[in-house]
């Protein structure tokens, strides 16, 4: 549904996107992750025809965005929370877009209700909170009832309730068979929402796969605490494990609970805690992006 191949974009001396390729299938929610400046926004803007690529292709439903028959009704996008005239009322903002994008005007009230803004529809956007603007941006993306959604940091400015709402909302959209490509730096949120992730760094693809697949590639960690912490730390280091402090406890990377427990028993250390730490998407993210930086 979304296909990016050999994409390259240069800004002066900086290569913002460097030979990037990946694809998004229908009915999938794909997280698009990377540190600040990794090239996420540039990639999404190229996909939407706002930025011109130096090389490669970025197509949606097999075509460039501007060549789609009714792009606004086929692809919905949230790019930034600032794309509103502060003096225009929310409902009018949507009416303006619906007219230009050939979306039926009745959709305006439907999407306002869908994002929970019907009560503030006649307020000027200048008086909106960041979270309300984000909902309005999402409403504009849904105006044309599109099959593909491209969302750049849609969780920005949402409160925890809003983030949970967004998560359920995106899942419901994907269940309807839409493809969703969502960039975010709130990794914990993405982890609960997406089917797969694409991780990029310095404009290059670092990893692409399901969250579980990527987690398997990252070593597990064990949290261990002991009144003989210093000695235990030395023993663990001697055995070749990477040890870091986590408050009074130690975090041992690349080890299983069994390995740490056996090592402690050999030296008769007293243990107060021995817990395997579940690998988070965050761990995968840092490992992959920092490896790349080395």
């Amino acid at each position, binding site marked *: 549904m979304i296909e990016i191949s050999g994409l390259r974009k240069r800004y002066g001396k900086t290569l913002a996107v460097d030979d990037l390729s990946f694809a998004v299938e229908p009915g999938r929610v794909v997280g698009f992750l990377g540190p600040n400046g990794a090239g996420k926004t540039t990639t999404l803007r190229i996909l939407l025809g*706002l930025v011109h690529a130096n090389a490669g292709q970025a197509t949606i439903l097999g075509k460039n965005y501007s060549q789609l028959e009714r792009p606004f009704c086929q692809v919905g996008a949230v790019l*930034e929370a600032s794309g*509103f005239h502060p003096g225009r009322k929310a409902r009018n903002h949507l009416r303006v*877009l619906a007219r*230009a994008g050939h979306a039926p005007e009745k959709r305006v009230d439907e999407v306002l209700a869908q994002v929970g803004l019907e009560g503030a529809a006649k307020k000027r956007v200048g008086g909106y909170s960041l979270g309300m603007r984000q909902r309005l941006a999402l409403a504009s993306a849904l105006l044309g009832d599109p099959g593909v959604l491209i969302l750049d940091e849609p969780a920005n400015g949402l409160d925890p309730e809003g983030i949970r709402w967004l998560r359920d909302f995106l899942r419901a959209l994907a269940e309807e068979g839409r493809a969703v490509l969502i960039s975010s730096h709130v990794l914990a949120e993405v982890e609960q929402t997406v089917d797969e992730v694409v991780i990029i760094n310095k404009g290059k693809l670092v990893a692409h796969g399901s969250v579980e697949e990527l987690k398997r590639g990252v070593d597990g960690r064990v949290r261990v605490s002991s009144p003989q912490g210093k000695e235990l730390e030395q023993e663990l280091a001697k055995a070749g494990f990477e040890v870091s402090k986590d408050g009074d406890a130690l975090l041992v990377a690349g080890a299983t609970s069994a390995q740490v427990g056996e090592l402690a028993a050999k030296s008769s250390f007293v243990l107060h805690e021995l817990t395997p730490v579940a690998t988070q998407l965050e761990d995968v993210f840092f490992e992959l992006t920092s490896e790349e930086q080395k």
Partner: protein
Amino acid sequence: MIAALSSEWLKIRTTRTIFWLLFALAAIVTLFTVAGILTNNKESLTGASNQLDLIGIGVLSVLIALIMGLIVSTGEFRHGTITPTLLSTPSRPLVVISKAIAAVLLGVTLVAFAEVLVIAEMAALLPLRGIDFTLQGGDVARLLIRILAASAIWAGIGSALGLAFRNQIGTFVGCFAWLFFAEPLVQGILGSHWINSDAGRFLPLSSTGSIFNSANDNSANDMLSPWAGAATLSGWMLLATIVALVLLSRRDVS
């Protein structure tokens, strides 16, 4: 095309800027008309040609039309609405053209508003001073068409320059610096005895002046005829539109 134009027109109607500008235009026009009727002596207000001069104050809408044209397009960059605009209308030439047409329509609306106001005020106030309202339909129509043409073209120029240069304050300052300083200066240099060229007639402000040149005396001065003036000014609008088309199409919107 219709969808993009209708969307542009709705944009203009749904912010308060247009209403502030209409208010400012009404206030200035009313001030000049009322002051003109109350302070001038009776003789200089009697007769069609004197009264036609009073209507001429509507020419202020040319300036307001330029300002509105600039606001309509630079506002897209100032508020970041250019992104949703290009997502709903991905064809950049279509954005430039629909904005230009919306601006031209806006220019026409501003003039119609200003002139209806002036004529209503004259019709109400002149009899109070015992003066007959003697304007001839044909003269009024001729003047109105000239003001309409100039306002419409300047609104189009404003819209195109705004899309080409994006920065609201910079484009405003540039436009007004050209109109009030640079063009008179260039005009002066071209007309000086060193160069002695009448090419200055083709500059934007001079060609605007030519539109209001009365048909009888165009041979007596170095202005273009009204038709040539309108054509030249339209040429400037076309040039500005082409520049906007080329720059907007090439640029990245980020």
